[in-house]
């Protein structure tokens, strides 16, 4: 092939007649077409690797967890009995722990994120917006292991200090009081939920801030002109206009919270008991895997990989919803 090209080039240099030149041009455009084709296939293969990564993650964890899934089937999901000594594996406690901590994180992070977004788009003076937004987003840049260390060495003792107070105040409220009864260990579901809330705060607030900025100034100004207060503009104009994207942002945060490992592993306490109190130690899917995987063999290891599969499926669905909701606003904008 190279020979032909060089011969073609040599010919075209020698020749003064038009015929070899035409042959050369044709030759070149054929080579170009071939290279274009190869290049395109190469690019497409790389792009398909992204799909392969997602599909592979799902299939390989399903394959790795097949032993326990075949043995127990749906019992794996609903049994609370996790006992490596007797080779019994029920995933209810980790599932419950993951859901409860993520829920606490959402309940705490959503209003705070909304506040941050409101402050940064409507209230703060212009010079303050950029630096403060960067600072809040830096929270997302801190590695999760640092959250874990800070959680274990600093935040757990801090929580142990205020938990007796929680017992005495929130613990006396009927119905939800039971959630706040327990020994002041510092470790536990509530602590993990709060650490997660801090971690997902920058994700939710940056989505909210970005979509709040897409609201046409016309709409807001019309509302101000009718005498609305800033709060009324945000609550009645901005929020309804961006509703789907705001929900998308919240789901994005939820997806992060569900899958987070390092920050919660240290502060959860690693206990497979399901309790009614948020102050008690618990476990989560990701922290069970991180804590036990390297000591696990046989069915135990299979059960942990099956947990990973479960986590992947749940986060995939949550993130899918998040992206679909976020896309709705982009459509409205005509992007």
């Amino acid at each position, binding site marked *: 092939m190279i020979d032909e090209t060089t011969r073609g080039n040599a010919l075209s240099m020698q020749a003064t007649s038009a015929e070899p030149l035409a042959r050369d041009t044709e030759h070149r455009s054929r080579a170009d077409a071939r290279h274009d084709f*190869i290049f395109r296939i190469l690019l497409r293969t790389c792009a398909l690797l992204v799909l392969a990564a997602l599909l592979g993650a799902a299939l390989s964890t399903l394959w790795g967890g097949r032993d326990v899934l075949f043995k127990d089937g749906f019992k794996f999901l609903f049994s609370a009995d996790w006992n490596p000594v007797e080779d019994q594996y029920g995933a209810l406690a980790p599932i419950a722990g993951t859901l409860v901590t993520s829920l606490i994180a959402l309940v705490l992070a959503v209003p705070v994120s909304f506040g941050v977004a409101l402050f940064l788009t409507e209230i703060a003076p212009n010079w303050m917006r950029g630096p403060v937004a960067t600072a809040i987003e830096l929270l997302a840049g801190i590695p999760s*292991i640092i959250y874990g260390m800070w959680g274990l060495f600093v935040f757990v003792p801090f929580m142990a200090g205020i938990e007796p107070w929680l017992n005495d105040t929130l613990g006396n409220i009927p119905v939800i009081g039971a959630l706040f009864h327990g020994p002041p260990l510092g470790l536990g579901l509530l602590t993990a939920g709060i650490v997660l809330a801090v971690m997902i705060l920058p994700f939710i607030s940056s989505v909210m801030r970005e979509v709040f900025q897409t609201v046409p100034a016309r709409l807001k100004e019309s509302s101000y002109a009718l005498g609305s207060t800033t709060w009324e503009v945000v609550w009645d104009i901005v929020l309804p206009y961006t509703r789907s994207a705001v929900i998308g942002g919240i789901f*994005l945060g939820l*997806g992060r919270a569900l899958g987070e490992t390092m920050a919660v592993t240290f502060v959860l306490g690693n206990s497979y008991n399901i309790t009614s109190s948020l102050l008690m130690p618990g476990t989560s899917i990701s922290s069970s895997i991180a804590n036990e995987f390297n000591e696990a063999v046989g069915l135990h290891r299979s059960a942990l990989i099956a947990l990973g599969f479960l986590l992947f499926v749940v986060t995939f669905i949550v*993130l899918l919803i998040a992206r679909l909701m976020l896309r709705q606003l982009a459509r409205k904008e005509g992007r």
Partner: protein
Amino acid sequence: MSAVYARRRITNIVALVLSGCATLLGLIFLVWILWITLENGISAITPTLFTKITAYADQGGLSNAIVGSLIMDLMALMICAPIGVLAGTYLAEYASSTRLGASIRFLNDILLSAPSIVLGLFVYVIVVLPMSNLTNGAISFSGFAGSVALALIGLPVIVRTTDEMLQLVPGTLREAALSLGIPQWKLTMQVLMRAAFSGILTGVLLALARLAGETAPLLFTAFGNNFMTAHPLDKMASMPVTIYQYTNDPNPALHAIAWAGALLITLFVLALSLLTRIMFSRKKVSYE
């Protein structure tokens, strides 16, 4: 002043004050975490940290973990940067309006926030287990497996930034080049890549910032090693995993070393992400 009017004003003031408090709360947590890391880390940074290996435990340092992390981060970048750039180019140049392109872009955004521990399990099943079976257990956990797991973390970041950056290149540039008869692969590699180079580099640096702090995907791929090694098929130590192990240990002297490592890694990651922001603040980059 009517009661309704007063109530509206009070609601407004309360809401605005609360939103200021929310922002303050976020900043307090940022400062709190950074301050604790700085306070505990600085006092523990000593020369032995960089000269001794982790085998000496509380008499030792982190040199093998630092070297291991550098090797795995670089290998991960060498895997995910070319693939990510080419995949992002495909999305921007070849599939910007096709259904395949739209679905890959969509799923890439999901991969961007997929749980990293599951990606670690994935690599365990497809790299660590087969290698162990092939070699009868002689090679199992390895630095190579760790880099593959880290590459999966970095890949979607690079795909997304490359895609966005190429879309910012003006269409007239493409038309001008094509009208000169240049084939599309040359247009892409020699014109568009050059025009978007700084943006694509930002993506690679962001990916590095993202994967350098990851712990979970390394636990069951690179595992850890108390001795210095540069061989990609050995078990390899890394900063985050060593910090994790030391934090779990009851020995307070190890906690101090863990804090020093935590400070180094936080400084590295935050400096990288601030650098990319400052250098390319005019271009729009997505961080999540």
